[in-house]
């Protein structure tokens, strides 16, 4: 909603532009719904029934709402981490692999500390910290390759996503295979005493919820209220100019990657300790890619990301209900994709209109 005040413009016109603005945004959402409905019609399904089922699947019972919240936690943490790299003008498409490495390090720590005399809570905390470290290390790789190897972070990150998945699969089928026969369903489950407990009668762990809220606030404060955030933004706008003005861009690029990796690692650790309880081949569970979409949709503003992340999490959970209509769960991805596409396009239309006025 950035309408720079310009000389000679009356408030009345400004108000009119705000309405146009809102109208364009709403039409983007309607377009996304329209195209998703068309896709449903092609799949020979009733669009309204499908949307109703998604709503029931996400909000039908109180326990379902807590399931949505449990899915919101990793998504909002991943999105928040990506705001660091986006602010620095970096495309950290390797997020998915960084989450996977968080999960790998978490499980690795559990395996190491399984039979020590440490208190179970202590072991879990150490394992989550190990996960954070795994995320950081894997995130520094595309950063180092960009800075010292000239490899665009998009391709570095993408390649590393596949490499991370391969490492996970190798561990599942090789060194960390289940006693007896290796299975693509994952490694052996961690002991129940190490798992983060759910709030009585819900599907959500209070610890993860608190961690997520703290991290969301941390990112908002870092980016909006500190010199660090301002410098990162300056680099994102124009890294060469920022360098000339004395900001050590290389160090800030690596910091942005490292911070994003920290968030990715925590995401992976939370997935292991509160949802998957083991290392599975798809350890990132798509949260990295989904986080990228949410970050694009909120135009990289930390204030909006919790709300959009909640909406996306609700779509993802509600979607499961579609199986009763004989449809698969890729519909939420379709709707989310159309939504981001049309919001991006609508933003372009808005800018053109503002320019013409």
């Amino acid at each position: 909603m950035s309408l720079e005040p310009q000389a000679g413009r009356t408030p009345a016109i400004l108000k009119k532009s705000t309405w146009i603005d809102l109208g364009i945004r709403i039409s983007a959402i309607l377009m996304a719904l329209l195209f998703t409905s068309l896709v449903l019609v092609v799949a020979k399904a009733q669009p309204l029934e499908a949307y109703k089922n998604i709503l029931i699947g996400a909000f039908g019972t109180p326990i379902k709402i807590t399931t949505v919240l449990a899915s919101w936690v990793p998504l909002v943490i991943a999105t928040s981490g990506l705001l660091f790299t986006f602010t620095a003008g970096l495309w950290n498409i390797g997020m998915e692999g960084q989450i996977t490495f968080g999960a790998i390090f978490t499980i690795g720590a559990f395996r190491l500390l399984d039979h020590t005399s440490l208190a179970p809570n202590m072991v879990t905390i150490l394992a989550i910290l190990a996960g954070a470290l795994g995320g950081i290390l894997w995130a520094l790789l595309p950063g180092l390759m960009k800075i010292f190897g000239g490899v665009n972070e998009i391709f570095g990150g993408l390649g590393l996503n596949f490499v991370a998945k391969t490492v996970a699969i190798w561990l599942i089928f090789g060194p960390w295979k289940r006693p007896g026969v290796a299975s693509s369903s994952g490694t052996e489950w961690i002991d129940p005493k190490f798992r983060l407990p759910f709030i009585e009668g819900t599907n959500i762990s209070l610890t993860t919820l608190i961690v997520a809220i703290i991290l969301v606030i941390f990112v908002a404060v870092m980016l909006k209220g500190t010199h660090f955030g301002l410098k990162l933004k300056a680099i994102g706008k124009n890294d060469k100019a920022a360098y000339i003005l004395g900001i050590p861009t290389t160090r800030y690029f690596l910091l942005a990657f490292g911070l994003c990796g920290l968030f990715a690692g925590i995401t992976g650790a939370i997935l292991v300790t509160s949802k998957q309880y083991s290392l599975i081949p798809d350890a990132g569970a798509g949260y990295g890619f989904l986080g990228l979409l949410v970050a694009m949709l909120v135009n990289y503003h930390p204030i909006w990301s919790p709300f959009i992340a909640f909406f996306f999490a609700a779509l993802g959970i509600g979607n499961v209900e579609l199986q009763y209509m004989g449809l698969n769960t890729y519909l939420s991805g379709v709707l989310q994709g159309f939504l981001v596409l049309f919001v991006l396009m609508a933003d372009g239309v808005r800018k053109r209109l503002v320019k013409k006025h």
Partner: protein
Amino acid sequence: MDSTTLTTLAGIVEYAVPVLFASIGENFTEKSGITNLSVNGTILLTAMAGFVVALTTNSLFLGFLAGALIGALVGAIVAFSSITLKQSQVAIGFVLALLGRDLSYFLGAPFNNKPGIFVSKIPIPGLSDIPFVGPVFFNHSIVVYASYIFIIAAYIFMFKTRPGLMLCGVGERPAAAFVRGANVNGLRYLYTILGSALVGLAGPMYSLAVKIGWSSQLSGLDGVGWIALAITIFGGWNPLRVAFGAYFFAALQQLGITLQSSTQIPIQILQAAPFPLMILTLLLVNVGRAEWVDRELAALPEKPRAIISKILRALRTSPPASLGIPFENE
């Protein structure tokens, strides 16, 4: 030469075809100055759509046409959003890559593992009888023969014809091309749509000719599009070198298939093997430009320095100068 080796070599020539069309298609788009990141989604979507259209209409031609048209539509969205609406090419392309994948998995589900129709092999009389060359190059479907002509035609068009030179000019120095009368943004529209239509042919080439059939996630096509984008970079935006990259990738895939039958390595690991290599090749073609490499080289004795810098220079590629930069004729 025994028959297994010949089959493997023929397999490489065949497997390279879809990647060839996708990465040379992207080569055209990027030469004009636009990056179209949607390739992976387009390949999956057109593999599904081409298969379904061919199955329901019983026409292979319509299957390929559907692929090309969907590809062109994706290209048009990228061009419109980035040129006319001035949105980030990376953002639009990335969203389309994810959207195309999810659309193909959602709409393609009812057609999973259905038997369909496919392009049959037509050995070329005479040529296919030549020892070695015949079985490797001339005992294929028409799709493979089309790829030979396509590589050479793309190279000649890009570097030896007037419109091709205009294309390079638009990507290198758009302002200069504009002064000389080129419609810069019009040409960028044209080559983004054309390039994406070529990418759209790659999908049906998989599902109707090279890796016949459709089975959603299990098709093993997810990721090929990203490799195709990397091959375009590795190939230095030159169709001949890009073709070499595609054959190299296909050789890796074939090696995976061979290893799978002779060892216990899980298939998922073999499928992922090209990605570390992709990173390595990107490092090799880019690292020659880094400052620290020059510094390190200067410290080396004369002989190895000359050899290493020669190798780095041979590997090094540079993108079209205005790749990803919008052009405004004001």
